[in-house]
């Protein structure tokens, strides 16, 4: 595509300068996908705004020319939320990358949307604070993307998800207006909670360019433990038992045998590879409480059939284990060419049954499924290891996925716990929602973006 050929691209070059506008094949091919497998579509052009005002100007321009806008950060999304459309404009916000303020008196941090999430946590750390949401991609993903997808993470069990930490935001609306929503007040019931509308809206309602985040004091102590099992169900039972014992650890992560093998192959930190399941457990808080909880959790694990339970020697070893777990998804790609990651969540009482069902489904359809996830919050990531070029196998993947989704919904679960609906899950959304709530979703979209120019085709058609 040549910028001279398309008036709106030429207008963008005028607006932002030639360096900020990409339109050659070599530049566009690498923007045709995000972290989702098997979805790809080349955009017409990619731009790099440097301010909220730039973003607003781009949106106005796109609106004038009737060009769809897809927003993107680091492109690590796992539901196709930032996969472009043909002839669309991609707004890549990675250059809005400044932390604007850390306010230790109010425990808040204000940052532009393109700041890497890990950098937010590092900046907070300098003040003895921390930013709890820690998606597996936190070293790469941007905070704006995390808010737009309402990302979860390994600490979701105790600390919740991104939504629980957003106090305010600047958002560019579909008409190009700039709105500020929220404030630093812990309590605020003035009007509708508009900021909540944009958290998890996947770029379909507005473009978040700045966020005000809540920080927490860093816990004084942390303990990391590993429990190894000869059966996946025993691991799931342990999780249910810990919750039933009224313990809320910060992390209860689960890896099955296949995932463990891949993670160990990559990280080489001495994880056991001859067990059927492993639980990574972490508790943090007051040192005395942490000691007590750690011991009780280890006991519960043993009572529920753990073959071996051990505690990380120190915080550094604990951090290494958690870091290895973060790579589980990518490490699974070692087995087969295509890795399709799913993201179902069930009530925690149903975990053991769900894990069993996933295994049976894999066997029934002769598929390889590696399962890992945030077991403590009921969020599982059954991951299909397949080859997109094998049509027959891909058909079986579709069948199995459909059955897993049906079962999830039947158990009172949800089709996505943290990755969003995007393109990948929109086919299932209606199934989960009743007619009234599904219609309401569409109504909100129509009210805010009547022309349907912001990330069209995502969440629903």
């Amino acid at each position, binding site marked *: 595509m040549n910028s001279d050929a398309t008036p709106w691209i030429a207008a963008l070059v005028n607006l932002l300068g030639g360096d900020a506008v990409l339109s050659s094949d070599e530049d566009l091919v690498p923007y045709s996908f995000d972290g989702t497998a098997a979805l790809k579509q080349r955009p017409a052009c990619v731009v790099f705004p440097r301010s909220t005002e730039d973003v607003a100007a781009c949106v106005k321009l796109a609106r004038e020319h009737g060009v769809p806008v897809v927003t993107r950060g680091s492109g690590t999304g796992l539901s196709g939320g930032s996969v472009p459309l043909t002839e669309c404009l991609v707004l890549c916000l990675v250059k809005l990358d400044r932390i604007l303020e850390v306010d230790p008196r109010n425990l808040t941090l204000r940052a532009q949307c393109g700041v890497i999430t890990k950098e937010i946590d590092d900046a907070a750390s300098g003040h003895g604070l921390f930013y709890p949401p820690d998606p597996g991609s936190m070293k790469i993903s941007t905070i704006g993307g995390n808010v737009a997808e309402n990302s979860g993470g390994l600490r979701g069990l105790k600390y919740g998800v991104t939504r629980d930490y957003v106090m305010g935001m600047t958002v560019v609306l579909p008409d190009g207006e700039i709105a500020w929503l929220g404030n630093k007040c812990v309590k605020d019931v003035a009007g509708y909670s508009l900021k909540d509308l944009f958290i998890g809206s996947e770029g379909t309602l507005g473009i978040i360019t700045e966020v005000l985040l809540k920080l927490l004091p860093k816990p004084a102590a942390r303990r990391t433990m590993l429990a190894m099992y000869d059966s996946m169900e025993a691991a799931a039972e342990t999780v249910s038992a810990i919750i039933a014992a009224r313990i809320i650890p910060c992390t209860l992560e689960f890896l099955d045998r296949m995932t463990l093998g891949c993670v160990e192959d990559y990280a080489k930190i001495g994880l056991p590879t001859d067990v059927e399941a492993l639980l990574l457990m972490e508790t943090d808080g007051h040192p005395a409480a942490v000691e007590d909880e750690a011991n009780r959790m280890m006991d519960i694990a043993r009572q529920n059939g753990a073959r071996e339970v051990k505690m990380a020697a120190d915080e550094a070893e604990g951090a290494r284990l958690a870091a290895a777990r973060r790579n589980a998804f990518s490490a699974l*790609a070692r087995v087969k060419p295509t890795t399709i990651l799913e993201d179902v969540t069930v009530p925690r009482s149903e975990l053991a049954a769900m894990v069993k069902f996933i295994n049976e489904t894999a066997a029934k359809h002769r598929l390889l499924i590696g399962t890992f996830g945030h077991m403590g919050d009921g969020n599982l990531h059954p991951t299909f290891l397949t080859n997109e070029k094998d049509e027959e196998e891909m058909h079986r993947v579709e069948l199995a996925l459909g059955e897993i989704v049906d079962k999830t919904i039947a158990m009172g679960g949800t089709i996505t716990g943290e990755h969003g609906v995007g393109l990948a899950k929109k086919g299932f959304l209606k199934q989960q929602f009743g007619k009234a709530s599904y219609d309401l979703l569409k109504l909100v979209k129509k009210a805010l973006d009547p022309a349907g120019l912001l990330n069209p085709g995502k969440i629903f058609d």
Partner: protein
Amino acid sequence: MSIEPGKKGVGAMLLKQLDYSVLQQCMHCGMCLPTCPTYVETKRERNSPRGRIALMRAMADGEVPVTRSFADEMYYCLGCLACQTACPAGVNYVELFETSRAEVERSGVQPRGQRDFWRWLTLEVLFMHPRLLRAVGLMLRVYQQTGLQTMVRRLGLPKLIPGKLGSLEPQTPTVAAAFSDDLIDAVESPAERPRYRVALLTGCVQDLVFSQINRDTADVLLANGCEVITPRNQYCCGSLHGHNGAPELARDLARRQLDMFDVDSLDAIITNAGGCGSHLKHYGHLLHHDPVYGPKAAEWDRKVRDIHEWLVEIGIRKPVSAPATVDSTPVEVTYHESCHLCHGQKITSQPRVVLGAIPGLKVKELPESNWCCGSAGIYNITQPEQSAKLLERKLKNLEATGAGVVATSNPGCHMQLAFGLRSKPEAKCHEVTQPVSLLAEAYRREREEGGRQEE
């Protein structure tokens, strides 16, 4: 004068011949992005590993042709392989990268003329003919030692050299006073009955510029009970060719290299240059289609060891003396990791173990120690701008350690750091050396101080 046979666009497309699953292995999760020096600089996907792989795949799929712009991209990539270390999916980036550069050369999309001449002169002439390379080295030494260089510089003649080359003149390394074959005998034996029999690879750049490091390596091996075999007049290992899109020449050099060694009779083949080692360990893959050389190359791969790796494997003998200072203050040294040693060969702890074994040294960890220094083969020549940025970043980190000495283990990095520090006479860090040299010096002082007092 073109390097590889075939004219523009002629012949089978190399990217299409690649095992497609190598391309598919990248599931674009993005874990590579923060470790890629070029992506971090520009934040553009095409400048990232996953972006480059997407382009390669689009070419293998026939969606886009091989273009000049793609060629520029492949030469903008440092080939530092930091992405390979970061990649949980285990993508074999080095194979993709080398194939792509070869594809670029095959398709002839790069400008011809001057570039062809320099590629021909270096890859096809100088680095294929060790005697010629050394003869040119000798001439350069004469130029540097007779005062001619000073005169030329005073007259401002380098400014007359066309293009980028003039600005590179100050980076020209000083040629060593004697080459490896003059310093090391073909066979050297330790004082006691040897525990191992090893071959020593002298390299080409190492041999011309840092032959003393080869001598130091031999000394260290002898002090650790190894008999050292050093074949005369060795060839370039071919890494330069492999990394720069000339795989046929790389294969040719690998065969010549294999001919010089009786691999079966050796316990190990020792290399002391990170970049060469990374390539040398893959002769098996390089020659896997070769019925004659294939099996020998596979055996070779099993025996090639980086010097630090070998020392740790056989149990390094700790010297009893400190290498330098007469007073009791320890020398503060920091360690810069050569990309192909740490990312290519995954050798990170062993050089630190070697440094840690030397008395009188205080080892200070270098921030971003495995971040490329910008040398990257001939990258400082082809991409001076990005190379300079990386060097500046490295010098800042060196300064932050407060160490006076930096050790590294690759001639390219060594020259790059030395060049950078020359331009900063005020810096506290003032000396570049290698772990083996420090160790060799400690053994030497031990001998001077009356032999080994303890085992």
